[in-house]
């Protein structure tokens, strides 16, 4: 009964979204406020509706209703309740519903804002959002109904939305359960964060389209959506970082990023979104790059849909994709249509988006921003090429040719280094005009400090030649860029707050605090830059200086790596039980002592859990983390009679914690930049009067 009701709710949501599409167009054509208001209200209605559907599905998940095929696929009786709730995004149908739920949440939030100044945008924003929602809910209605039930018929059990002829409901005793690899806090929050980021990018796109359609092509749309874009970007960044952390903690290969097509699918909208965040600033300050911003926002929207498509359609072989599915062609058509229509609108309004100023100086802030954009798009093109290369090569030559991580590392490396360097100098250049001389004046002090530090690093390597490997020259370049940018950024903070401290007679920390409060976007941005620099530092460490060893040792014996010594102490083998007393997992847990130069440091407990329900082992590393490095121990195998020994694999990951530490700074900086202003109404109130004065028709 509940299943039919749930499906009914989804169908109604679909119809409401379709109605909102027609009401907004009709209202616009008839110039009828009533219809437009109706479309807005129906947009708001979709949120309670999708909430009802999602909560129903969660109810069925929590209550072990295995008659529902989705519930059967992603949960089992043994799972704790919170995992049953989060299983909502553990499979295809549920995650699509979850996507729609988030989208309707965001759209409702947008339609609740004050629209007084932007009446003309409203119907078009509702239109774009409704079309997107209708598409995603439509996938649930026509292809992937999460409320599909099992039916026993003459020819066996089959899943179906409606009762087949002669079918009786069939309820398996227990479900499949969630893959144990996914039962990790990082994995529980990672998908919703990515989805939030994906979904929130629909909003700047909707406003951009509204601006194109209405011809109100000033920078109003970028100002309205600035914060939305930042929040979208924040969630997307968080999703990417959490995914990396999950891989590092759970997948047991000592890495965090594998250039998997699905990782890239989430990374691509992040790249174009980052480019967009930078280039809108030029539009706001200088009235330039308007076409480019439109292209970036369209691109980001298409990449968001493409990313969802890649994760969900199984078109590429990847560890992340759930399944081959019928929804592939539908996605393809939707991306194609929205992309073509958006570009057509842009071409239609092309002359009206003319730049208000011209770039003259190659070193001006706007020119460097443009360069930043080109580099981001360059990386995006490389990623896109890598992802679709197998498809292209198959079409062109008949043979499937793929490119792996070395391709991405090699091709994007120089561009990332250039970006990092640019990140250091661009904030120092002036709008309009800069020369080598003015830039040099601002840079030389931090540059001198950076060179001194680099000299110390080179000396350190010369004293420890064992650390030098094939990557050494690249590592030096990377470290130089990273350290220079770090010092320039810190120097910027110091210079500005020292100036304020002198002028206002404030303590320097208070000056920094107030300065950042006054111009949060700028100082939030600098904080993000600082986070990126720290992340780069960590990435250089693990990518270029990671070492590993492996071996089978008996209790009392040791393995040595990077100056550390690891001694195998003991091993325990035991069962963990479910609440009902059935065995849940077998745990093999080793105790090892880590020491350096004969000095005992700590004990680690690498383990290997075997889940009976999923018939799958899971390796959990024992890790000693310091700012200097991670000592990362995996228990690979052991002999039942522990006197024979156990096999370990050890990674030494230098500097990797700077990656996580930098990520935290990065996220903090985004919060600073995205946090709503204390007094956001003051400016709009004044501006509203002015706007009303020359809009008599409104």
């Amino acid at each position, binding site marked *: 009964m509940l299943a039919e009701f749930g499906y009914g709710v989804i169908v109604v949501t679909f119809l409401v979204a379709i109605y909102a599409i027609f009401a907004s167009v009709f209202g616009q054509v008839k110039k009828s406020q009533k219809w437009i208001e109706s479309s807005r209200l129906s947009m708001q209605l979709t949120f309670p509706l999708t909430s009802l559907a999602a909560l129903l599905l969660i109810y069925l998940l929590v209550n072990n209703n295995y008659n529902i095929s989705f519930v059967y696929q992603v949960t089992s009786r043994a799972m704790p309740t919170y995992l049953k709730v989060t299983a909502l995004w553990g499979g295809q149908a549920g995650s699509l519903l979850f996507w729609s739920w988030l989208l309707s949440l965001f759209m409702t939030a947008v339609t609740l804002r004050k629209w007084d100044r932007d009446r003309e945008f409203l119907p078009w924003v509702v239109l774009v959002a409704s079309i997107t929602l209708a598409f995603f809910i439509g996938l649930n209605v026509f292809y992937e109904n999460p409320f599909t039930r099992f039916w026993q018929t003459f020819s066996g059990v089959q899943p179906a939305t409606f009762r087949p002829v002669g079918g009786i409901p069939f309820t398996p005793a227990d479900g499949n359960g969630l893959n144990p690899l996914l039962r990790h806090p990082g994995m529980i929050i990672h998908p919703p964060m990515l989805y939030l980021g994906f979904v929130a990018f629909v909003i700047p796109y909707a406003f951009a389209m509204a601006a194109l359609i209405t011809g109100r092509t000033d920078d109003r749309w970028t100002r309205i959506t600035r914060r939305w874009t930042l929040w979208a970007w924040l969630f997307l960044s968080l999703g990417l970082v959490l995914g990396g952390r999950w891989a590092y903690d759970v997948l047991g290969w000592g890495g965090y990023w594998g250039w998997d097509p699905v990782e890239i699918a989430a990374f691509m909208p992040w790249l174009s979104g980052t480019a967009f965040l930078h280039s809108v600033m030029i539009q706001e300050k200088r009235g330039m790059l308007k076409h480019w911003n439109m292209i970036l926002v369209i691109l980001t929207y298409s990449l968001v849909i493409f990313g969802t498509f890649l994760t969900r359609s199984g078109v590429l072989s990847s560890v992340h994709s759930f399944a081959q599915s019928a929804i592939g062609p539908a996605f393809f058509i939707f991306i194609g249509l929205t992309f073509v229509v958006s570009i057509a609108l842009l071409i239609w309004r092309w002359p009206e988006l003319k730049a208000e100023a011209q770039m003259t100086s190659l070193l001006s802030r706007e020119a460097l921003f443009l360069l930043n954009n080109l580099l981001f798009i360059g990386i995006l093109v490389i990623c896109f090429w890598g992802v679709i290369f197998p498809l292209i090569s198959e079409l062109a030559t008949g043979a499937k040719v*793929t490119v792996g991580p070395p391709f991405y590392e090699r091709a994007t490396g120089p561009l990332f280094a250039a970006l990092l360097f640019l990140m250091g100098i661009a904030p120092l250049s002036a709008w309009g005009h800069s020369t080598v001389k003015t830039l040099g004046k601002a840079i030389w002090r931090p540059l001198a400090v950076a060179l001194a530090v680099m000299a110390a690093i080179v000396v350190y390597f010369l004293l420890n030649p064992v650390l030098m490997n094939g990557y050494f020259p690249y590592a030096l370049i990377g470290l130089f860029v990273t350290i220079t940018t770090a010092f320039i950024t810190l120097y910027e903070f110091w210079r500005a707050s020292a100036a304020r401290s002198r002028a206002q007679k404030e303590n320097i920390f208070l000056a920094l605090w107030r300065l950042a409060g006054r111009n949060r976007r700028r100082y939030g941005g600098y904080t993000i830059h600082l986070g990126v620099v720290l992340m780069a530092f960590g990435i250089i460490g693990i990518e270029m200086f990671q070492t590993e060893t492996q071996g089978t040792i008996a209790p009392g014996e040791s393995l040595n790596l990077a100056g550390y010594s690891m001694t195998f102490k003991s091993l325990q083998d035991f069962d963990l039980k479910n609440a009902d007393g059935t065995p849940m997992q077998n745990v093999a847990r080793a105790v090892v002592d880590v020491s350096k130069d004969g000095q005992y440091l700590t004990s680690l407990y690498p383990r290997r859990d075997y889940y009976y329900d999923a018939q799958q082992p899971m390796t959990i590393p024992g890790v000693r983390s310091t700012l200097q490095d991670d000592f990362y121990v995996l228990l690979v195998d052991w002999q039942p009679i522990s006197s024979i020994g156990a096999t370990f694999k050890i990674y030494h990951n230098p500097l990797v914690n700077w990656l996580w530490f930098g990520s935290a700074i990065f996220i903090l900086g985004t919060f600073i930049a995205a946090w709503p202003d204390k007094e956001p109404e003051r400016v709009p109130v004044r501006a509203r009067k002015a706007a009303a004065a020359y809009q008599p028709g409104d």
Partner: protein
Amino acid sequence: MAQNPRIKFILGGVMILLAVVYLIASSTQASAQYFMTVEELREKQADVSGRELRLSGAIVGESIEYDPATLTLKFVVAHVPGDNAQIEREGGLGEVLHQAVIDPTRARLNVIFVGVKPDLMRDEAQAIMTGKMGEDGIFHADELLLKCPTKYEEALPDQAEG
């Protein structure tokens, strides 16, 4: 003078474009790998000997042999079609993997991998391997990626097959 700045920017843009194109072209050439099925590899064994390539196949459970002392993992993979549409026609990836393993007439190949035995290593998992075909007729994998679709793909409960 009015034209000069434009030329500067166009030149700069073209240079970046060329750099990106160069990076893509050279990196593609340096790291492109043929993605092959077991059957294709058996046919072209001589041509691709010593070349880095990717191979996809279904793991035959009873062949898995692991020596933890040397971390040497030996197993046999059975042919699964590379074409998504064909996999769809044959009943989805889970079914195709199952058929590949129980059908003794399928092309099979021995694989050696040195390293940690992956958690997902088991019967009827899909293995995607990167490595080289050796003179000995064994595929030497440097990288082993496993997909275990059965848990997610089979919408039908096991009871239904009885």
